[in-house]
């Protein structure tokens, strides 16, 4: 504490403005080669009415160093995996290897056009094919499409495959099967994806133990309208659905199929395979389990893996191998169609294959073990101070609640914000929705014991602060560029873009002043 001394508020770095507020007319930050062909009058080429007439108003004019400083400064306001542990439950924030980035930047891939001829893209197709083979082995599900761009996209793909399969199987009668069962603990994308595929959603309750309620499932399956079940396993509470086989049987017997949300596959890779459990179709999040970077919100890659039976329904084109040649197979009449232009988020496939190959089969399993071990270690370390709503030992992530702290008025949100002061990214909070004040902690395999101990110590210290000095926690974070923002006000009167004021040009403003 530097008491009595006013802290500086004009530090340029935390006060970096919007780029539009830095723009100065006439500044440039690029240089292109001079035009090397004869120039025609633009009016001769394009009718005046089709030409832009606003001189790109508002688009900034800045120098290269302005741009660099702008982004470098802003970047310093972010937390990131490379800075420290990022224990966001369900999000699997594991270390993103720079080696994989290097692979993705190899010119033979980075400069490759997706519409070049098949024979000129053999290396690229081989990558897709090899990754498909690895994922098939890991999931135990042989039919694969890498086209979906993210988890939710994979869900939509998988659910549409289920629908196409049922319609093909049941003919006109298929239209009676328009119910998708989804546990109350599921991620929001599950119902949204089911809806996109034209299903109505029925919610299955969880038991006190945190698992799917079999009785409720049976009850819901009794009406002949069930197209399928969407289940996350381990579920979003971090618990393995140990009745999975039975669950699949119940759904199958009711004429439905089982979709597994594979966002938590990092608890299973090398240990157990959805295909062996009776699951029909699954999506993976390569941006979770296979460590492709999250990039502040994406890109992802959400491959859809399914049984042999469902394979004909996968999106086209499929990537297949004939002898030593890789081919694009467009000719799949049962296919649900294309879900994305070209081949999906290809760059993520390169990274995921690199991940798979550098880990090797042993390493993949070791990563799973470490992820689960680390979660267990945290579970162990925090039970004395936090309420753990489910007794069973967790898999790769563990859920706690704010039950004890809330007695003092300290809630999950406050605990999360206070963690920031200790140098950690908060855990996932208020998810899954069924746990009041949920704190879902997923350390991943990318932390060592030292960092785990620091995290546990921080959490314990916060628990103590919640008793001794709740204000400290309630007003957290104390050390960031900005404090808690008024989100309600922001939503009430949303300002979603910058707008030019009469004069924001820096030089003009200066000249006036």
């Amino acid at each position: 504490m530097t008491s009595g001394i006013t802290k500086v508020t004009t530090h340029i770095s935390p006060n970096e403005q919007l780029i539009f507020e830095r723009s100065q007319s006439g500044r440039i930050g690029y240089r292109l080669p001079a035009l090397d062909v004869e120039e025609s009058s633009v009016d001769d080429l394009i009718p005046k009415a089709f030409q832009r007439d606003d001189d790109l108003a508002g688009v900034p004019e800045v120098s290269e160093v302005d741009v660099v400083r702008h982004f470098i400064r802003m970047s310093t306001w972010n937390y990131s995996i490379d800075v420290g542990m990022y224990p966001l439950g369900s999000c699997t924030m594991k270390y993103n290897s720079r080696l994989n980035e290097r692979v993705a930047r190899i010119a033979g891939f980075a400069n490759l056009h997706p519409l070049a001829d098949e024979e000129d893209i053999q290396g690229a197709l081989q990558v897709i094919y090899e990754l498909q083979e690895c994922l098939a082995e890991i999931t135990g599900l042989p039919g694969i499409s890498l086209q979906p761009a993210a988890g939710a996209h994979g869900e939509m793909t998988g659910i549409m495959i289920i629908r196409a399969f049922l319609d093909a199987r049941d003919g006109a009668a298929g239209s009676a099967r328009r119910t998708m069962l989804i546990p109350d603990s599921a991620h929001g994308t599950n119902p949204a994806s089911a809806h996109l595929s034209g299903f109505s959603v029925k919610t299955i309750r969880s038991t006190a133990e945190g698992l799917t309620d079999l009785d409720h499932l049976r009850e819901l399956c009794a009406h002949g309208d069930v197209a399928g079940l969407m289940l996350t396993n381990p579920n979003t509470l971090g618990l393995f659905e140990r009745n999975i086989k039975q669950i699949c049987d119940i759904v199958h017997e009711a004429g439905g199929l089982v979709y597994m949300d594979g966002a938590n596959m990092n608890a299973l890779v090398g240990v157990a395979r959805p295909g062996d459990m009776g699951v029909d179709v699954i999506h993976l999040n390569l941006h979770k389990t296979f460590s492709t970077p999250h990039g502040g919100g994406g890109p992802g890659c959400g491959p859809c893996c399914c049984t042999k039976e469902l394979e004909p329904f996968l999106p086209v084109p499929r990537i297949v191998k004939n002898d030593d040649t890789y081919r694009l197979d467009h000719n799949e009449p049962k296919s649900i169609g294309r879900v994305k232009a070209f081949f999906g988020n290809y760059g993520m496939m390169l990274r995921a294959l690199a991940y798979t190959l550098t880990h090797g089969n042993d390493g993949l399993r070791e990563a799973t073990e470490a992820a689960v071990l680390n979660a267990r270690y945290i579970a162990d370390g925090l039970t004395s101070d936090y309420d753990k709503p489910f007794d069973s030992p967790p898999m790769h992530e563990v859920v706690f609640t704010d039950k004890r702290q809330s007695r003092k008025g300290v809630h999950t949100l406050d605990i999360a914000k206070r963690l920031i002061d200790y140098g950690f990214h908060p855990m996932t909070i208020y998810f899954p929705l069924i746990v009041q004040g949920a704190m879902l902690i997923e350390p991943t395999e990318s932390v060592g014991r030292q960092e785990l101990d620091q995290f546990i110590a921080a959490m314990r210290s916060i628990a103590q602060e919640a008793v001794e000095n709740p204000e400290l926690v309630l007003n957290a974070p104390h050390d960031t560029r900005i404090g808690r923002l008024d989100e309600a006000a922001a939503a009430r009167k949303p300002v979603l873009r910058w707008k030019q004021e009469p004069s924001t040009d820096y030089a003009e403003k200066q000249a006036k002043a």
Partner: protein
Amino acid sequence: MLEAIGLKSAEQLFDSIPQELRLQRPLNTPAALSEIELLDKFDRLGRRNAAAQRISFLGGGAYSHYIPTIVDHIISRSEFFTAYTPYQPEISQGTLQTIFEFQTLVCQLTGMDLANASMYDGSTALAEAVLMAERITRRSKVIASAAVHPQYLEVVKTYVQHAGIDLELANFDEKTGQSAAALAEAIDDKTAALVVQSPNFFGCIEDLKALADAAHAKGALLVVAITEAMSLGLLQSPGACGADIVVAEGQSFGVPLSFGGPYVGLFATRDKYARQIPGRLVGEAYDKKGRRGFVLTLATREQHIRREKATSNICTNEGLIALAATVYMEAMGKRGIQEAAHQCLQKAAYTAKRIAAVKGFSLPFTGPYFNEFVVRGPLASSELLSRLAKEKAIEGGIALSRFMPDRANDFLVCVTETNTREQIDSLVSALSEL
């Protein structure tokens, strides 16, 4: 550590998985490679992509534009690249402010009121736009131009198949290569939206203003798709023409070809439709001390709150690619985008003129174009292009027969600021030698 939590073996970690469901053997995937071996493997694979090594005139939804070096430098910053979705605004302002800038830039370029934080790509953005138009108008018929990128149309078809939407195609004019007239004609009172791409798949610029007027006259929306975002540097913005929803593929702005992805979908609309937009939105917000910051906002549209009633199922989007596009737009700036667009136009015009002068070659469409145009050759374009590639190491264009079997001799040529006159001249002389 196992000991510390009272376990004896790693296997015990998995006690909650029934024994019979556990894999009893090692995974049958390859053994671990070292860095040296891995790079060697991918280097070899990369070299098997012959197309990446050639002079190229391929476009059709994926464009070779110059990428300033700083783009990759900035997106490779650990703080951007290894961050998650900015759910904790206090330690995510870097991401949030850049998204706010991205949204603003997209609005400025498209001429629209507001834009979201990105969609997967142009094709899925278009599909979402169609669904949104249905939600807004509560009408079920959607008329799309047959000159929209064929893969975009396929994706739209997939997305709408269970949404009770009737998708009709309106043909393009065989002479001009434009489709506005046919679209305007097909409209009726049940039409939710007209869907058009401009420049369209053939490179021809559509009359958006006329289309917007026609759509609005019937209470329908105009949805405009753009695959070549660079055209916005020079062509009238869809917003100024009256479009209601504009989607675009942002790949042209600083994103490598990368065999088709990851790219980034731009999605913009009118203020009045703010609560119907899919995807994330970042808005301005203030803390207790009155300091400006940014947050994810209007989340009640989204799946994590609204579940099956959300405006879309999208969660993970294309954050890092949106960042790349943001850096690109800011680094190039107003003048850079204008100049790149101008060079595309000029070089394409030069190329078209030169090719049209080669015996046996002609330009079947008369509509104005930006940097892509269709060429009709003297033999099947698939054969012609394959010879061009093998004999001259030139990727000369995209055979339209891949998408439209009846257009055997037509191919799509794209020219950008990265194609030097030397390359163009070598294409022309190669064509004349074939």
